[in-house]
């Protein structure tokens, strides 16, 4: 089997079979990460460009590490946001970098739809590393990889996604992805940060935390940003924490036995997640990070390598 698409733009457009194939490929590549010499020649001579219009540490590092392990060359560009307004257009930046020999673009952009726009400009694969409030498909995939590893399955799991849903591309990708894989997804957050229309993903919508995490096998906690308070969407972080913060007490009282906690990072300890939860064994944040590298190796390999699966 091979990937049926040239670009990774969203999980909305993928089906379960395709997602499973990507996760299986990532599982088979993960072994490389535990070798003493973490290097295989699969993508030698290929150039991966990470073009990030928004600050990022873990996503960018994860992509670059994945590319380097597969022996690809990497270039990383962070145009200042102001250059979008004056200076070189996104279009010209893409054409310039393509002309320099880029074989694949990894793009993060504050504008929803920017990676899709890029596919109309360049003729090499594009991977969406997060576009505005739209999607973050590689995060969704690595979360599924992690959860499948821990629970052995995705089908039938009850997953609660909690926090600033409105501004979260992670929430959108995960809602699409998890429901496609047969999990039942609940979305919870304050009404000011919760577009009810997201029911179209197949998720159920809750503006109260308790019913959303009742019986949940997974509580997926999103980062809450201070600027939401400044822009009048939240009265205070203190009250947010009281209403929606994930505490050991709430988990034990409401979630299913053996429930795990996930977070895309970086965490605000003491705000959306209690420090005791963040440090507990059932919080799999570091697994998510490790799986991120394997998952991105799989995508780069499938998009740039061959159709015949891993050779090393």
């Amino acid at each position, binding site marked *: 089997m091979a990937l049926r698409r040239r670009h990774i733009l969203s999980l*909305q457009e993928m089906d379960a079979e395709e997602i499973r194939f990507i996760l299986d490929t990532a599982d088979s590549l993960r072994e490389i990460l535990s070798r003493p010499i973490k290097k295989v020649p699969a993508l030698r001579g290929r150039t991966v460009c990470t073009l990030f219009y928004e600050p990022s540490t873990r996503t960018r590092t994860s992509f670059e590490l994945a590319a380097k392990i597969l022996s690809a060359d990497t270039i990383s560009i962070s145009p200042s946001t102001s250059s*979008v*307004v004056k200076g070189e*257009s*996104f*279009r010209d930046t893409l054409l310039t970098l393509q002309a320099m020999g880029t074989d694949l673009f990894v793009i993060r*952009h*504050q*504008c*929803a*739809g*920017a990676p*899709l*726009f890029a596919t*109309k400009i360049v003729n090499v694969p594009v991977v969406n590393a997060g*576009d*505005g*409030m*739209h*999607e973050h498909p590689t995060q969704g995939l690595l979360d599924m990889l992690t959860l499948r590893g821990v629970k052995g399955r995705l089908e039938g799991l009850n997953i609660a996604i909690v926090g600033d849903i409105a501004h979260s*591309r992670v929430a*959108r990708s995960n809602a699409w992805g998890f429901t496609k894989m047969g999990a039942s997804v609940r979305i919870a957050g304050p009404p000011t940060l919760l*577009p009810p*229309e*997201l029911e*179209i*993903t197949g998720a159920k919508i809750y503006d109260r935390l308790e019913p959303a995490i009742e019986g949940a096998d997974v509580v997926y906690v999103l980062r809450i940003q201070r600027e939401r308070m400044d822009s009048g969407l939240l009265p205070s972080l203190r009250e947010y924490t009281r209403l929606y913060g994930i505490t050991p007490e709430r988990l034990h009282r409401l979630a299913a036995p053996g429930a795990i906690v996930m977070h895309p990072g970086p965490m605000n300890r003491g705000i959306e997640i209690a420090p005791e939860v963040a440090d507990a064994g059932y919080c799999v944040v570091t697994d998510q990070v490790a799986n991120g590298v394997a998952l991105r190796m799989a995508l780069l390999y499938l998009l740039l390598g061959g159709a015949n699966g891993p050779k090393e």
Partner: protein
Amino acid sequence: MDLILSGGRIVDPSQGLDAVGDLVIGDGRVVDIRLGGASGTRSAPSGAINLTPHHIVMPGCVDVHCHLREPGQEHKETIATGSASAAAGGFTTVLCMPNTDPPIDSAAVVSLVLRRAAEAKGARVIPLAAGTQGMGEERLSEMADLVECGAAAITDDAFPIQSSATLRRVMEYCRMLGVPFVAHCEDKSLTQGGCMNEGEVSAVLGLRGMPAAAEEIALARNILLARLTGVHLHVAHVSTAFAVDLVRMAKRTGVRISAEACPHHFSLTDQAVADSGYDTATKVNPPLRTRQDVEAVKRGLADGTIDCIATDHAPHSAEEKDVEYQFAPFGMVGFETALALTFTELVEPGHLEPMRAVECLSSAPARIFRLDCGTLRPGSRADVTVIDTQREWVVDREKLLSRSKNTPFHGRMLKGLPVLTVVEGRVVHSVLEGM
């Protein structure tokens, strides 16, 4: 005789006329209408342009809402190119909006626009003028000067006046001057950062939404201020179902109000943003709404709640539109697709009778803005549009006469083509064979 249009179906709502016949034009005026049987059963006068009953001969179309970008943004459009594009779309008179650079907020700029308009070779161009200096929130413009100089009405289009107090004063002046106030209804505090309709599609695409309520709140406020001041309120680009209801209610209660709808608001929904893959040609303000809104706009046009059709022709250059969706400017070109969309989306499916469609495009807008056109009565200004109702054609943005190509209808098959445009007795556009 200058010109005889022979054997077409003459439709003129101002006379309640819908019959096959000859339209005789001389010295820039309508001279006579000679009704006769179907073409072929009688001989056409010599030297006439021969038409058939599927050619509708109507009073020239009037567009009360367009952006011609001159002065200041001539890379998008000029009065000359806009006038030509309008003529190609079947329009004989267009009213252009004042959000130019500098804005049309002084008699000097009105005069400049009228001078350029006099040189243009297509549709007649008449400016609308801004009610506030710099299209701001503070100081009133010299509205009496603007109107005496030739502005057809006063408006806040593109920069909706947020202060109710300022708007009240503008309306009071409009009432005194006897011109409509054309309102762009938008509560900006609700649309901040938005780039499409707020709803399911925006939630999935991750684009900031502009809720229908932003338009409806401003419209409700403007209706109340029209009641207070007695002004004739003309509502630009009605796009939501509840806005149609608000206009209907205002009319019932005797408020002096008229309204327009744009072809894109009865032809496309917000799903077009998703289906086109964030194509910035779909970015427009007010945004493309939902199926329910589209249906309500159609009903409003059919029952007369919405008086007329206007294009909101808003040209933008390729480099301005070929960017990320969020960064693209609002607006789409509309002159050259408006008639065809009206016939394809409204007449062909039976929402509008041809007579009502012609009224929406010509006599109604002329009446609302007290223009000397919109009729084929003998003696009146010979502004005439002929549309071939059977002609199917595919929109090709490269063939548009507008300087800009930002249309969301590229590649779409439409039925109905303006084939002849006559302004004051002069043929300004024709795709008829043998002409």
